[in-house]
């Protein structure tokens, strides 16, 4: 029979095997009817409400033979006197709050049982009840600010802080988690916790024997206590936390390290005084080491922390350089993740904004080649940062250093970026070009630079920018054209390729200054 096998294949798709085949197709090209889907979603919601309120025996735990009471029943039992029922109801509430889909946080809050559950936190005689209440409150506090506030206003802060010292590890761990959620809401609750002296008992939980999962929770909560500005956390709190962070940064667990780095990055994202507090701990070499980690989850916060440090004073920046940041940055500028490229370029731009000694160190450490690479083929956001590196470099660098920069081939990708859509970037580039011309003037090499710019199709691009919608861009472009590319006939600048080799400005030439 003709084309037998092929057609049988087609036909088998018909009746059987739908799961895989159909799904594939659904993924590729099915757009379900919007209205239909919305309707279905509504139905789904109806069903879940129905299940909860009218048919309590059919809750989501059905397959485990767990009976899920209604919200009404939960409220009554929590408010009642029967300890056993209190436990069951709190557990039921916790279960609702810990399901993946649509946890009924609002409904539970509306039952008004939060103060009662906070009360349960204090039942030292009933660890089960304490734990279930702690978990339920943790999940309520995990919602919006309003949700968190409901928990705090229920009096949970002191209750959780005292539970940190519970003899039951799972209860103290759950309290750490809840406090993390409260601290994460913002500076107000963070400082309320600090004022209640949350830090000493929290730090006391850190020891070499602490189980890893627990330690991760502690680290995360600590990072939330360091997090947020306006205002930043109180200085004495920071000073208490820092030594423990340094200890945690030595840990072998990547998550612990990552969250510790984030904590340090929050602390350095501040005024120079606060940066100094961090630098004084001698933490920089370890952070630089972590910037070189194979794990993006570690590299990102470590780089952020060090990047924040070099926004500080020249001295603080020098400490980062001394810790080796410039030896790590080339690799990060070439990182596969665009975000890392961008952050690395941002960091470099701040070092390039420093004194010329530090700029010299940039050259010495071989940062120019990766910079040029990034400028020519990096991610656009990273390119924008790289433009800033060049801009800062030409502003603060000596004439020799600027010549070195041009020699490394920065001009071509820089001029190419004049085609970018972003006016701010274009403006920065035009200002940089002006500075390059100023340097060339000092050396008497203006014409050579003109020629180089023209050869790299830069002149055309600058000329086109005279039509740019942004007035500043137009004026900057016009300024360059008027100063360096008009008046004198272009004929004078016709390719002077004859003298000694093709282009006098070609980057590898030895005998020219510029």
């Amino acid at each position, binding site marked *: *029979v*003709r*084309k*037998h096998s092929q*057609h*049988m294949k*087609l*036909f*088998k*798709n*018909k*009746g059987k095997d*739908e*799961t895989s*085949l*159909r*799904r594939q*197709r*659904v*993924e590729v*090209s*099915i*757009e*379900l*009817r919007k209205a*239909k889907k919305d309707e*279905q979603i509504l139905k*789904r919601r109806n069903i879940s409400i129905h299940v909860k309120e009218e048919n309590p025996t059919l809750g*989501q735990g059905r*397959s*485990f033979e767990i009976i899920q009471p209604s919200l009404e029943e939960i409220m009554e039992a929590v408010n009642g006197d029967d300890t056993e029922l209190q436990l069951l109801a709190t557990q039921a509430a916790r*279960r609702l*709050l*810990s*399901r*993946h889909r649509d*946890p009924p946080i609002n409904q539970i809050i509306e039952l008004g049982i939060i103060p009662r559950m906070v009360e349960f936190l204090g039942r030292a005689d009933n660890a089960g009840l304490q734990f279930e209440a702690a*978990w339920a409150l*943790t*999940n309520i*506090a*995990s*919602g919006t600010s309003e949700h*968190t506030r409901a928990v705090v206003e229920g009096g949970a802060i002191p209750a959780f802080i005292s539970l940190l010292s519970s003899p039951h590890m799972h209860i103290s761990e*759950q309290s750490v*988690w809840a406090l*993390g*959620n409260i601290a*994460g*809401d913002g500076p107000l609750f963070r400082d309320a916790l600090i004022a209640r002296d949350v830090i000493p008992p929290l730090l006391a939980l850190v020891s070499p024997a602490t189980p890893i999962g627990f330690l991760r929770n502690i680290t*995360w909560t600590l*990072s*939330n206590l360091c997090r947020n500005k306006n205002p930043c956390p109180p200085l004495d709190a920071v000073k208490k936390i820092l030594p423990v962070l340094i200890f945690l940064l030595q840990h072998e667990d990547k998550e612990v390290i*990552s969250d510790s780095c*984030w904590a340090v990055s929050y602390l350095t994202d501040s005024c120079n005084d606060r940066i100094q507090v961090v630098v004084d701990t001698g933490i920089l070499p370890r952070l630089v080491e972590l910037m070189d980690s194979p794990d*993006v*989850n570690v590299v*990102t*916060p470590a780089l952020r922390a060090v990047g924040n440090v070099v926004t500080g004073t020249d001295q603080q920046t020098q400490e980062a350089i001394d810790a080796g940041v410039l030896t790590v940055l080339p690799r990060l500028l070439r990182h596969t*993740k665009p975000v890392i490229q961008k952050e690395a370029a941002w960091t470099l731009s701040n070092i390039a904004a420093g004194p010329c000694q530090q700029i010299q160190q940039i050259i010495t450490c071989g940062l120019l080649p990766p910079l040029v690479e990034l400028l020519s083929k990096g991610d656009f956001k990273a390119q924008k940062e790289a433009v800033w590196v060049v801009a800062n470099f030409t502003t603060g660098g000596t004439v020799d250093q600027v010549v070195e920069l041009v020699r490394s081939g920065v001009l071509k990708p820089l001029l190419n970026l004049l085609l970018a859509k972003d006016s701010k970037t274009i403006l920065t580039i035009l200002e940089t070009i002006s500075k390059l011309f100023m340097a060339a003037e000092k050396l008497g090499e203006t014409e050579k630079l003109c020629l180089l710019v023209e050869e790299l199709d830069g002149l055309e691009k600058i000329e086109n920018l005279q039509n740019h919608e942004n007035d500043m861009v137009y004026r900057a472009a016009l300024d360059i054209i008027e100063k360096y590319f008009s008046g004198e006939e272009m004929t004078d600048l016709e390719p002077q390729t004859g003298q000694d080799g093709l282009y006098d400005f070609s980057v590898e030439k030895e005998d020219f200054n510029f």
Partner: protein
Amino acid sequence: QRVLLLVASDVDALCACKILQALFQCDHVQYTLVPVSGWQELETAFLEHKDQFKYFVLINCGANVDLLEILQPEEDTFFFVCDSHRPINVVNVYNDTQVKLLVKQDDDLDVPAYDDIFRDEEDEEEDSESESEGSEPLEKRRRFEEEVIERTMRRRQRREWEARRREILFDYEQYEYHGTSSAMVMFDLAWIMSKDLNDMLWWAIVGLTDQWVQDKITQMKYVTDIGILQRHVSRHNHRNEDEENSLSIDCMRIAFEYDLRLALYQHWSLYESLCNTSYTSASLKLWSVQGQKRLQEFLADMGLPLKQVKQKFNSMDMSLKENLREMIEESANKFGMKDLRVQTFSIHFGFKNKFSASDIVYATTSLMENIEKEGPETTNFIKALDSLSRGNLDKLHQGLDLAKKQLRAIQQTVASCICTNLVISQGPFLYCSLMEGTPDVKLFSKPVSLCLLSKYLLKSFVCSTKNKRCKLLPLVMAAPMDVEQGTVIMVGIPPETESSDKKNFFGRAFEKAAESTSSRTLHNHFELSIIELKTEDRSKFLDALISLLS
């Protein structure tokens, strides 16, 4: 934008095609017409034309399989599907971008709910966090149910959902049946656009009549749709009732008729028609001597002279023709034929051109399945299509002649099958196989002819057998297809009962039987209950089918 029209080989499809062509002409839409007789041709036609066309109209094909899966079209390709095959594939139903189904609004499709058969991918990947690499820690975190419990629970729910999905789809896809005639759907479209013409209405009538002649729809559905069309007929043809505005005799008129259910009788002799109509032949058991005697008695009861009955209907005495229908009906009742008259329509144009809708169906079918080769593959299709236009009377008459031959061949084959006990009970179904060398066997290598034969045979068999159980069985019929390649064509039809819902489970059963025995089958026909099979594999295939249905 040029449109590609892919049209299946059945009369309803041709009629729908005629209506659409007229609409296209009206709106100056350019199109290319490609006849397709099965999935292979559909696929080939698509591959050949997919680069030049973005819009494809499929008539009486494509609804019951996952089109996108089979054709793998580009994203900017669109299919408009007007197909009476049911059930409609669920992916076609829920695809709202590339597949547009033309379905009558009040057709009950019983499609499973979207959420019962499709799951959004996002539901499954709730806890994959791989993409958040390097991002800041969350400010707040919820503690979920223990991971293990969650995962087991989700996996269990998923398994249950899948089992339920299989069940739902099995129920949905188990039976093949037919929805509203595509010609009627197309006519509806024309009507909604206020572009309906009397010619289009006639094609819609022929399309519906095809479904009735081929036994594809229930009596109930037929009567309902006749009612719908009758309203259109009176709307379009009322002018003749009024003397002043009466139309020229050359204009076409459609009339509702409560006509005799005798095939082609107005173009034949009454006698021939009585003998070759399945209903009368089966009821009177004409294959037996007693049956022939009963026929004579029947004629005598009507008081019609044999000589008159045997001559061309056109030449019969006018006096006899008056009240003929009532006369025949009265006698038929006495002979147990209560349904000899049926609601239908006829068309008149000119002085002598009168055709009943079923005349056209028989003629067009015969032209389409003409076994005399007259040119390339598509010749029959084009000829059949042309015969539907009033201007091609010669083709129509050729079709009528072929149809008479076909009906005779069917009746003779039915008689010989019954007389030589070729219909055998296999337990869960009846089985009949035509031998190579049987007269007219070549005719029955064509699907529509074979289906007609099967239906007529089953009807006759049910009338002939005394075995009550056998009366309720479906029938599987096989005929030689291609001797050189050693293949047979096989069709399965549902039981012949009065209340039959015309739903056919053989499509799925054939698939399963073929799969379990690795039989070399070709499921090429748009009707899934018609397959081609290697002759050598027939016995193991049948064995599997028997055990599957037992």
